[in-house]
């Protein structure tokens, strides 16, 4: 079943068209990988799904985007509640300069949860889901900036999970990490897809092949091909896809 359906999406930065006629269904509780060379629009596409592109001035968007039955780009859409349903993890780990606990509790607190016990249990649950609990349970009140890069990224995942989102967007979440930390995050993503719909932008073809169920290949603002990951990597329909996944360019 499609969790997010995108129909004929066009996105402009001023006069430059960054996304052209994109139509794509994102399946529920699957990992969808967005691949393509730099500047192909995959990150831009990801950011339309929780409307982070709103922050950039001069962006114009046309087309129909739906999260289940909810429109994403209508005038009266409450962006705040949309972003609670669609969490995001960024390329560079970006924990707040606060304690580990406060980082995870940040979203729920803004949502209005004040009860200490309730927050405690959300923090514990989220950190466990992000496979970080055992490493930090004795220093929850220490600064998040003291964690290693990989731990910081898992903290950011925990922070996003604390909002109990339905969809998790990940923008090259391992590109700033070493191979061991990357492996941990990949393991975690596979684990998380049991509960969440995950959309991940990645530069690494191997990563897409390892962890994703569906793959969408972007090139110069166009969606060239989207299909089962296995199919994309073995028998793609489009010559350009084949050239890219076999490493002939990009």
């Amino acid at each position, binding site marked *: 079943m499609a969790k997010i359906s995108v129909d004929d999406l066009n996105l402009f930065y001023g006069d430059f068209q960054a996304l052209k006629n994109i139509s794509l269904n994102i399946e529920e509780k699957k990992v969808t990988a967005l691949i393509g060379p730099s500047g192909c629009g995959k990150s831009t596409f990801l950011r339309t799904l929780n409307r982070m592109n709103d922050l950039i001035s001069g962006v114009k968007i046309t087309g129909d985007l739906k999260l289940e039955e909810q429109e994403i780009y209508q005038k009266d859409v409450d962006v705040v509640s949309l972003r609670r349903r669609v969490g995001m993890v960024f390329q560079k780990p970006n924990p707040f300069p606060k304690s580990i606990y406060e980082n995870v509790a940040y979203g729920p607190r*803004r949502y209005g949860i004040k009860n200490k016990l309730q927050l405690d249990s959300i923090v514990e649950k989220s950190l466990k889901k992000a496979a970080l609990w055992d490493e930090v349970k004795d220093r929850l009140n220490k600064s998040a900036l003291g964690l290693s890069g990989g731990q910081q990224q898992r903290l950011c995942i925990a922070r*996003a999970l604390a909002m109990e989102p339905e969809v998790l967007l990940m923008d090259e979440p391992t590109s700033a990490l070493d191979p061991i930390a990357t492996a941990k995050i990949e393991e975690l993503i596979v684990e998380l897809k049991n509960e969440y719909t995950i959309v991940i932008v990645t530069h690494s073809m191997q990563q897409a092949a390892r962890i994703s169920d569906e793959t969408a290949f972007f090139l110069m603002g166009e969606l060239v091909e989207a299909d089962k990951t296995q199919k994309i990597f073995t028998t793609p329909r489009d010559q350009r896809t084949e050239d890219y996944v076999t490493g002939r360019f990009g």
Partner: protein
Amino acid sequence: MNKKQLEEKIAFSVLTVTMLLVVVPTLLIIGYIIFKGIGTINWEFISAMPRKGMREGGIFPAIVGTIYLVLGTIILALPLGIGSAIYLTEYAKQGKITRLIRLAIMNLAGVPSVVYGLFGLGLFVLFLQIGTSILAGALTLACLILPVVITASEEALKSVPQSYREASLALGATKWQTIQKVVIPHAMPGIITGAILGIGRAAGETAPILLTVAAFFLPRLPKSVFDQAMVLPYHLYIISTQVPNMPQEIQYGTALVLLGLVSIFFMIATVIRIKFKMANRA
């Protein structure tokens, strides 16, 4: 010695000399004031009313007046300045108009302080009929230090990494929650630096207060913000130029007290700044 090493030596020497040219006179001035003024400082000088046409007694009312005036200025200027800076960096659409506003603010920082005094006299004292008072003076000084506060606050807000804002918004926080909980705490040390610079100016200016608040001789404490007050910089000016046969020790003593008072303000602000810095690291 080859040419490169020689160049290195010369550059280093020149830089050292410029540093000394800045530091040494400052230390000399401070040292001289301490040396000449320290003998005058005693409990009576700090806590008593002036007597005999200010030639004897203390400078208590001027100290109190200065504290009131600086506090009043900060209370008025800080929220206004931070608010404008937040508006300019976080909310306003960046374009011609914000550039014009920034240019205006920078120009305001260069306006001579006596012009602010005249402006305060015209607007607050006369037109709004507040009269010569601490309130009118604080309002005038607030206008004077606003450019400094706004510019420093803007720089501080701009230095907050965009990734923090994005992270907060992506977690479903509203823009205002993001500003309140992430942006301002992180910018606070820089904002307070601006406040410190402002305090320094507010405490030391003579021309604006001369026209809006200062009393020549008022041997009692101000009763309310609508009262006139004696203020240290102006007091120093009149006892140095307007009162004949003024003992020199009192002049230097007054200068030393002004210096000390400003230092105390700086120290308080610095402690607050360190507190915020620590909180950011935690």
